[in-house]
Structure formats: C-alpha cells, structure tokens
C-alpha cells in the first residue's frame, strides 16, 4: 500500500471544511442536508482509515453503524423539510420563523 495515513485524513479534512462552509452559508434546507452528509462521510472515512492503519476491525464496525444511523437521520430530515415546505411553501430556512403548526 503506497498511500500514507495522512493522505486519507487530509481528504477527510477538506470534505469536513466544505461541509462546514455549506452548513454556515447556504439557506436552502436541502443543500444544508447535503453539507451534513459530507461531514458524516468525512467522519466515516477517518474511522475506516484509522481502522486500516492500526490495524483493527472495530473502526469498520463503527463506520457501518454510522452509515446506518445516517440513513435514519436523512429520512427524518427530509420528512421535516417536506412538512416545512407544506407549511411555508418554501425551503429557505430564513422563512421558517414560527414553531406553531
């Protein structure tokens, strides 16, 4: 294997930084969900990279758990976006002002 561990971690850092940029700048709720997915994927890449270079199997196990939980999170997040869209006819998070139904 010719790649060192820091190569993978640098890709993961770049993905994390792009995700944080997306969460802090974008106002479209669906694009914010994209950015959150990128952050979760950066974390998974870190887990698997550390698991490969230690080497240990538990990092892969945790990555599998993390992927499964991320699927649940996206399902609930998209349902929330659909409810908010039905209520406000918009996906701009600056428009979601009141908590009342």
């Amino acid at each position: 294997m010719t790649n060192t561990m820091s190569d993978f971690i640098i890709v993961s850092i770049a993905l994390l930084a792009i995700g944080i940029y997306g969460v802090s700048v974008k106002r479209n709720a669906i694009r914010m969900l994209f950015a959150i997915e990128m952050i979760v994927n950066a974390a998974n890449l870190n887990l698997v990279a550390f698991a490969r270079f230690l080497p240990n199997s538990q990092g892969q196990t945790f990555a599998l758990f993390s992927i499964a939980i991320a699927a649940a999170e996206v399902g609930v997040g998209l349902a929330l976006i659909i409810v908010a869209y039905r209520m406000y006819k918009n996906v701009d998070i600056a428009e979601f002002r009141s908590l009342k139904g």
Partner: protein
Amino acid sequence: MADAVFLALAVMTIGSAIAALEVRSLIYGSIALMGTLGGIAGFFLLLDSPFVAMFQIAVYIGSIAVLILFTVMLVRRQLIFIKIEDPRRRYAGIGLMLVMMIALGAVILGSGIKTIQTDEPPVDFRVIGEDFLIYYWPALILMGLILASAVIGALTLARREDVTNDQHNE
C-alpha cells in the same frame, strides 16, 4: 506518497462536493452529491474495506441519494433553481473553510501521523461479522429499533392530514 488512483478519487470527491453545493440546480447538485458518496466508497476500497464500500454504495447511493432526488422533485420548480445568499456571509464562510483546512491540515502534517504506513494484511470481513454478533449485538438490536422508529417517525411527520377524509366522503 499518494498514487494516481488516490489522486483521481480525491479530485472527484472534492470537486463534486463543491459542485453539489454551488451548482445552480438542486437536481444536478444531488447528482454531484452521488459523485462525492461514490468517491468515498472508492476510498473505502483503497483502504481494503470492501464490505464497508458495498454498504456505502447500497445505503448512500442506492437509497439516500434517490430519496433526496425524490424530495427535490416534490419541491416547486422555481425553488429548485433559486439561490439566495448573503454575499458577506458567503465570504465569511469561505474564510472559515480555508482557516479550518489550513489549521487542521497543519496539525495533521505536523504530527507523527504523516509517516504511518502499514504492511499488515487487511482485516477479513468475517471478523467484522464476529464483532457485530459477539461484542456489539445489543448495539445492533438498538440500531434496528432506531431505524424502525425513524421510519415510523418520518412517515408520521410527512403524512397529509388534509386529505384523509376526502376518500370517505365520496
């Protein structure tokens, strides 16, 4: 040093991550997000973890990306192409991104992680199965319950209350 496959995957992952956030149409954005997720699956293959890579492809590209595409199609057409941003906030966000990249990158490159390489054989995926069923079985059951409750919660949230009685009245 990184090899050519790694560099190609890195360019694809980072490039499509930027495209997913910056492309005007949300539909092309979600297709670019699929590129990012597929690039991460490629990294998992490079790290000799084919089981995690298959799981990533099945769960992320197969279900999450398709779910996002369907949600985008449910949204009104004008909202898919609209892009509202505060320019000052955008520059602040780009600054935050660069600061994070440089700071965390300097920490990693300054640490001993840079030289770590391995010649050991990769972990067999049968070991992962043993991990799941011997050590982490309570977490596995809990994960199943969480997934079931998340699906039920999402269905309850997205249910339309205004059309339930129409069918009975007809």
